[in-house]
């Protein structure tokens, strides 16, 4: 397991992020496994990503901290539901594994991947991007503090350079 994935899990534990919802992506596999193995965490598999925005809102109303894990293609599904976050000044944390950028092989991933930071910003979220494994812990700690301390939505984009570009065909 890549070390930065464990860093994310440790920040979740240290900062009492105890509810995690996700639409899976290859880049989130190990984090989902770590969370599902943890009896202190409630982990929910979603039908579509915007459910995770509403789920996080409910969790916070009930006094818990949630995070939404998704791929960049899921960000577009969330747009209107993110109204909740800004209107209600709700803390919200999402970790987005990026596609459609650094070395992408699948052209269908490009439009949403390229639009992801713009869409999140347009809906009022603060967006951080991580390219280097050594930055993951610091950025995530800052994101959690910002979201839950300052009542705002924060997205951490885990870049394709960080997670590794997906390969569909053997390189020659």
């Amino acid at each position: 397991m890549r070390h930065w994935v464990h860093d994310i899990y440790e920040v979740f534990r240290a900062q009492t992020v105890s509810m995690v919802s996700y639409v899976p992506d290859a880049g989130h596999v190990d984090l989902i496994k770590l969370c599902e193995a943890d009896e202190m965490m409630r982990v929910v598999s979603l039908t579509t990503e915007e459910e995770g925005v509403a789920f996080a809102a409910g969790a916070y109303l009930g006094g818990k901290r949630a995070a939404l894990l998704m791929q960049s293609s899921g960000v577009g599904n969330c747009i209107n539901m993110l109204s909740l976050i800004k209107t209600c000044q709700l803390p919200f944390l999402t970790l987005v594994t990026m596609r459609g950028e650094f070395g992408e092989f699948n052209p269908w991933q490009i439009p949403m991947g390229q639009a992801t930071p713009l869409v999140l910003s347009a809906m009022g979220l603060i967006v951080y991007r991580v390219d280097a494994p050594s930055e993951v812990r610091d950025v995530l700690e800052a994101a959690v503090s910002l979201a839950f301390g300052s009542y705002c939505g924060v997205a951490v984009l885990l870049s394709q350079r960080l997670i590794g570009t997906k390969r569909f065909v053997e390189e020659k």
Partner: protein
Amino acid sequence: MNLAPRLNRREVVTALLADRGDLLVVAGLGATAWDVASVEDHPLDFPLWGAMGGAAMVGLGLAFAQPSRKVLVITGDGEMLMGMGSLATIATARPRNLRIAVIDNECYAETGRQRTSTAFGADIAAVALACGFPHARTVWEADEIEPLRADIHQRDDLFLAVIKVALSDDPKALPPRDGAYLKNRMRAALLGPQIFSE
């Protein structure tokens, strides 16, 4: 065979919220939010003014965060249809303390009464059962409301009820619309005033 729904939505919602105790309520946008507000403006209500399709999932988050409390989502057929996938998510998560009441007038009443799929036979209770809900039913008659109210407090498992209601012109009853206020009010009532200094 039931031809046209006869129940009055305001009477149904008023009856369902009678003697509510410490019940937590999430209301879907539009008419169901007005219905809930028409009963009283309660600090343990979270009426939505947007986020269409999200009411049931707000309920799931709240139900997991507060496992010792019963959580009731009251929403409309149009709102539930938009979030129909969440019925699969919720059935899989299976929170025993969550209940969903779909007030089904078979149309988008706020926007010109265009008919929804439920007017043509889409059966939200059957969808819930097919998704794995341990219990779901459709209610047509007035004498089924009190047993439903009792279930909200007593049934120890997830369930969904569709309540077929007539189209009606109800007096406007608007809840507060400041989302930050609604959030803070519910959290303070539920978690205590210390939330503002944490």
